[in-house]
């Protein structure tokens, strides 16, 4: 079969772009996979003890033993960054699950029942949204004292309104669709319609949004730990490491840029992958 010039041009254009798209998913996914594995199996990894101080070997440059050098107390920056990433991921995922669970449920209920229920839920969400987010998180953390569970809850509360809005908006339009009417005509009760008819349709938009929100949560955690309001030391956090070593930035940039690199790669990966997932879901939506 011979191809016309136009067709050949089209194939040329489609080919590389498609490969780019795949790469944009594969690279971030690979980093995230490595990061998650490293975080889960951190204690088993062949890396130096992140807590052992060596006051004779402080601020060492990167070497075969210390991949990212050592900090002002002679601790291994790479090992500490891995542990810090562990905190970042636990907080990022935990707070998004918290926000997704509570916000998603509230939005579902508000969008389906509308009326007074919707009014109250939306009002509360608007009140939460009207706080400057980081100030609210700082207020919660400084009131109750730093702990891992509390960081998750404090950041999670900030996500509730965003998830509630997305769930509500989608539910509002879904509830008008004929298959919801058909389900009622079949004798299903409201709870059944919500769980079996509406919720499965919300999964795709909420998942795509969640990935982007994990990135936001990790930034939030880094900001809190930079301010000393996240998980307390000696547990290393990426933000806490940057804050502690910033005085030595000129002599030992690795002690700051090491954890910063971990943060940067993770957040970039989440955003790029999240965008791609969103785009693919949108295409699928359009095809339905």
């Amino acid at each position, binding site marked *: 079969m011979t191809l016309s010039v136009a067709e050949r041009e089209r194939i040329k254009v489609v080919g590389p772009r498609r490969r780019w798209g795949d790469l944009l998913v594969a690279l971030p996914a690979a980093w995230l996979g490595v990061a998650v594995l490293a975080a889960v199996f951190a204690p088993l990894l062949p890396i130096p003890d992140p807590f052992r101080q060596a006051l004779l070997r402080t601020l060492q440059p990167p070497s075969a033993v210390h991949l990212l050098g050592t900090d002002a107390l002679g601790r291994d920056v790479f090992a500490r960054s891995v542990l810090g990433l562990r905190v970042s991921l636990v907080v990022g995922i935990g707070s998004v699950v918290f926000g997704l669970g509570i916000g998603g449920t509230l939005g579902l209920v508000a969008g389906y029942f509308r009326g007074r229920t919707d009014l109250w839920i939306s009002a509360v969400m608007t009140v939460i949204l009207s706080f400057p987010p980081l100030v609210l998180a700082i207020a919660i953390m400084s009131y109750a004292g730093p702990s891992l569970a509390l960081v998750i809850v404090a950041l999670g509360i900030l996500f509730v309104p965003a998830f509630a809005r997305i769930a509500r908006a989608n539910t509002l339009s879904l509830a008008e669709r*004929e*298959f919801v009417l*058909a389900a*009622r*005509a*079949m*004798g*299903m009760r409201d709870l059944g319609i919500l769980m079996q*008819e509406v919720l*499965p349709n919300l999964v795709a938009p909420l998942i795509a949004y969640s990935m982007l929100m994990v990135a936001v949560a990790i930034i939030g955690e880094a900001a809190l730990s930079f301010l000393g309001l996240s998980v307390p030391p000696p547990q290393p956090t990426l933000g806490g490491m940057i804050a502690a070593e910033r005085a030595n930035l000129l002599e030992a940039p690795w002690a700051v840029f090491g954890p910063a690199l971990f943060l940067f790669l993770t957040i970039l990966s989440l955003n790029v992958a999240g965008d791609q997932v969103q785009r693919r879901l949108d295409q699928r939506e359009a095809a339905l």
Partner: protein
Amino acid sequence: MNIADPLLSLRDLKSYLRTPRGLVRAVDGVTLDLAAGRTLGLVGESGCGKSVLARSILGLLPDAILQKAGGEIRFGGRDLRRSTEAELRKVRGREIAMIFQDPMTSLNPVLKVGPQIEQALRLHLGLRRTEARERAVDLLDQVGIPAARQRAVSYPHELSGGMRQRVMIAIALACDPKLLIADEPTTALDVTVQAQILDLLQEQQARRGMALILITHNLGVVAGMADEVAVMYAGRIVEHGPTAALLADPRMPYTAALLRSAPRLSDPPHTRLEAITGRPPVLVDPPAGCRFAPRCARSREDCRREPPEIEEAGTGRRFACWHPLELAHA
């Protein structure tokens, strides 16, 4: 229950809709009986209240919109108008099932079709998952879906419009309802598929002995399928009778106008269709007399003063008109 009692009987049913422009009298005093196993064709133009009537029977309109302005819906010894939501849920799907106009949107896009049928079976018949799965495949087979077992794990978007409507019918038939309400079941389908779907409905109805209310604006569909026809105009039934007699000899001028406005295959090409002049009345504030009077060629002064009641006219026919057309084929 007496054997002569109708399956469904509507008495002076009034369903008004609350809208920003005021109370719309979408169904305004409908009285109708339907015997078990019979097919009623409910015809009328868009906005005449057909769909509101159908949804009123199952109580599907939310209280925020619907004002129950009176009347009774007697079905199986109960008045559905006065039933609680919990009682209605047992009737919906189990005793009265409904299928909708657009099979593209009345199936859940993210669920496979088999599980969507299973829902009805598990809900009303309390079947376990494995039993329900077998029954769902069986139902898909009965509604003429080839390779039913493979199709049961398809998503709706993988099926054609006709296939989807067959799935909707399978869901509706799942619990062997006594009455099936089909709200324009073929309007969104290709003409060739329409006939197949109507055949399927007719076949299933005969096999199960269920009654059927077929809502349509297509008189051809009604002529082929319905035992009796009720013509609805502006929220009221204006004429009701056995299909053949009503179509051959309409008494109410609106019915006659509706018949004249339908294209006929025997017409030569480029024949102008006879449109009904004017528009249906706004049902927020309907005219005082006969609601068709402003568009009716036979209307006189008395038509505009007082509305005609629907009255028996022998041989099972009823109509609401002060100056009816004469019987031509009597």
